[in-house]
């Protein structure tokens, strides 16, 4: 492996966790009508999310579209700056990173996106796609770059003759392998995986999930896995968070979460997933209605408009995420 970031990791301050989100908020202004410069409101995409990501773990984030999971990913990749709160990298606020440190951060935290048909430049050859991060971030000679590209293509299981081909010559699963190779080229510590298999065929998903789990073990990677498929998140992640309208409603070890979900939304989400077994019990806790607009989220607990157990208190008071059992946190008044 190359020494791409030995200069990198900021003096690890004691036992500070790899990445930490503290009450992170991201509001997007909404402009409307003629006065386009004057914000008409705010979409509270992420509203007070706290999360600690330890080295070598996989944190899964699940939730329906519009719950803010992709915004969390973008914040971690420094593609968006938080409106409020802090993201700490080994204890240091990422907004205080300067110049070289930002580069180091970007080398350490890489991404794999959902759609391998649009995340790869159709006019570049595979070798150039995979080499691009190396050219941007390192001073490796062209010979070293070539060697490294060969190494990572080997890691993701692509033959060396594929380096001269263009993305359109590959199937979806192989394209996703190219995207993983590109993310791995800088020898990162963290991979942000935003729906990495949802664009792939069922028979290919298992291949990519197995590959991701293999390289995680081999290179001691840390994953933030964003997906709407709960079964996939359960299978891959150690810790799993459930998001609803920009807030984290439940966070627990993933096995515990599926066996012993506490939050009514988590229960509803789990029971809504069709089980591939015709004799399985059908949903026991259906929820009605749809996700309210994040432009004007409900007061108090954001789920109270759809919750079968809503009490008067739920519409008035925002429930806080608190531990109800060791390692199992839930934000719900039912457990106060």
């Amino acid at each position, binding site marked *: 492996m190359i020494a791409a970031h030995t200069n990198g990791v900021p003096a690890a301050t004691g036992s500070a966790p790899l990445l930490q989100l503290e009450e992170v908020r991201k509001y997007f202004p909404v402009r409307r009508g003629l006065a386009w410069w004057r914000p008409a409101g705010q979409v509270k995409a992420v509203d007070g999310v706290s999360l600690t990501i330890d080295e070598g773990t996989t944190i899964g984030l699940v939730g329906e579209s519009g719950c803010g999971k992709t915004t969390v990913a973008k914040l971690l990749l420094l593609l968006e700056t938080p409106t409020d709160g802090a993201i700490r990298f080994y204890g240091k606020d990422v907004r205080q990173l300067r110049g070289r440190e930002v580069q180091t951060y970007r080398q350490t935290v890489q991404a794999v996106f959902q759609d391998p048909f649009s995340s790869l430049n159709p006019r570049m050859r595979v070798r150039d796609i995979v080499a691009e991060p190396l050219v941007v971030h390192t001073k490796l000679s062209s010979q070293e770059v070539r060697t490294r590209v060969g190494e990572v293509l080997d890691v993701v299981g692509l033959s060396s003759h594929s380096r001269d081909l263009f993305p359109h010559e590959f199937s979806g699963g192989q394209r996703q392998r190219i995207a993983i190779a590109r993310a791995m080229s800088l020898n990162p510590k963290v991979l942000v995986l935003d729906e990495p298999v949802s664009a792939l065929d069922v*028979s290919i998903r*298992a291949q990519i999930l197995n590959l991701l789990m293999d390289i995680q073990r081999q290179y001691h990677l840390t994953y933030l896995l964003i997906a709407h498929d*709960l079964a996939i998140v359960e299978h891959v992640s150690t810790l799993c968070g459930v998001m609803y309208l920009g807030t984290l409603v439940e966070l627990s070890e993933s096995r515990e979460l599926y*066996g012993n979900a506490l939050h009514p939304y988590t229960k509803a989400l789990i029971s809504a997933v*069709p089980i*591939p077994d015709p004799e399985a019990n059908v949903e026991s806790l259906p929820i009605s209605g749809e996700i309210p607009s994040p432009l004007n989220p409900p007061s108090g607990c954001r789920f109270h408009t759809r919750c079968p157990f809503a009490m008067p208190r739920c519409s008035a008071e925002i429930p806080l995420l608190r531990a109800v059992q060791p390692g199992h946190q839930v934000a719900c008044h039912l457990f106060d």
Partner: protein
Amino acid sequence: MTEPLIQIRDLRTYLYTRRGVVKAVDGISFDIHEGEIVGLVGESGSGKTMTSLSILQLVPQPAGRIVGGSIMFEGEDLLTLPESRLQEIRGERISMILQDPLTALNPVYSIGNQVAEPFQFHPKEDGRGATIRNRVVEVLQRVGIPAAETRVKDFPHQFSGGMRQRVCAAIAIAPRPRLLIADEPTTALDVTIQAQFLRLLKQLQQEFNLAVLYITHDLGVVARLCNRVVVMYAGKIVETGDVTRIYKQPAHPYTQGLMQSVPRLGMKRERLFQIQGQPPDFLDLPQGCPFWPRCPQAQDVCKVEEPPVAAVGTAGTVRCWFPDLTGATQPVSSAV
């Protein structure tokens, strides 16, 4: 058993492209009985959508052409009917729900206008404005659109994804068809909304004794909804059968692989079973069984000769040289 509602025999739909002939649907045969939900499962590009388009004869022209076979529906062969008769059948006897409710609806017409269309095209009783309006409201209420009387004036963009799909369902069931083709209707929806839509579909199906051809790649949805399953691979049917039998004792190696490669909630395993290799290239299909390059049980004969069709379980078939016939009968016919 009574006469099936629709009998598809040896249907062949080819696409003539610049690079060669794509045998998108290559000699498939199956039946759908009245009041039955048949799941058509397969990967993208396996010919599922081409099958449904062939039934309605909406295969994209001029590239696509139905080159052989027959589709018997209510005593008529759809493939020999003149266009005028087909127009009477489309929408009235056989209707369709498409994958993406955003593009399936016309953005410049109100919902009421679009739901009224089938009543205008297929006038059954009274075609006067007020009557049509009442029936539009009635059918919108039936699919669970709240405040249907006022919402008929709204446009598609004023509805959420789940509500739009309900509108599409309303258009499809308005003329009381006998057969409903649903082409991945919930792929664009979130799981909780999907659960609501599936429940609605099941209710409608029972109420009107509809036959449904449900196209999907989601094995969970099939298990929840369908009575029978048809599995396609590379334009051919590889297995058909009762849903319980297909899930408990899949006979074809491809079906077995699909069933094992899906992560299931609450059944965490170390590694997922994976089907090796990539989906087939239609322009370069292997000789013999199209699945052999990915099949763990492939023998020499699979690489040369097309496999025969054997009977499995009750009214099931499997196209394989070496099917897993646990508790099944002997082969019935040679290659079709």
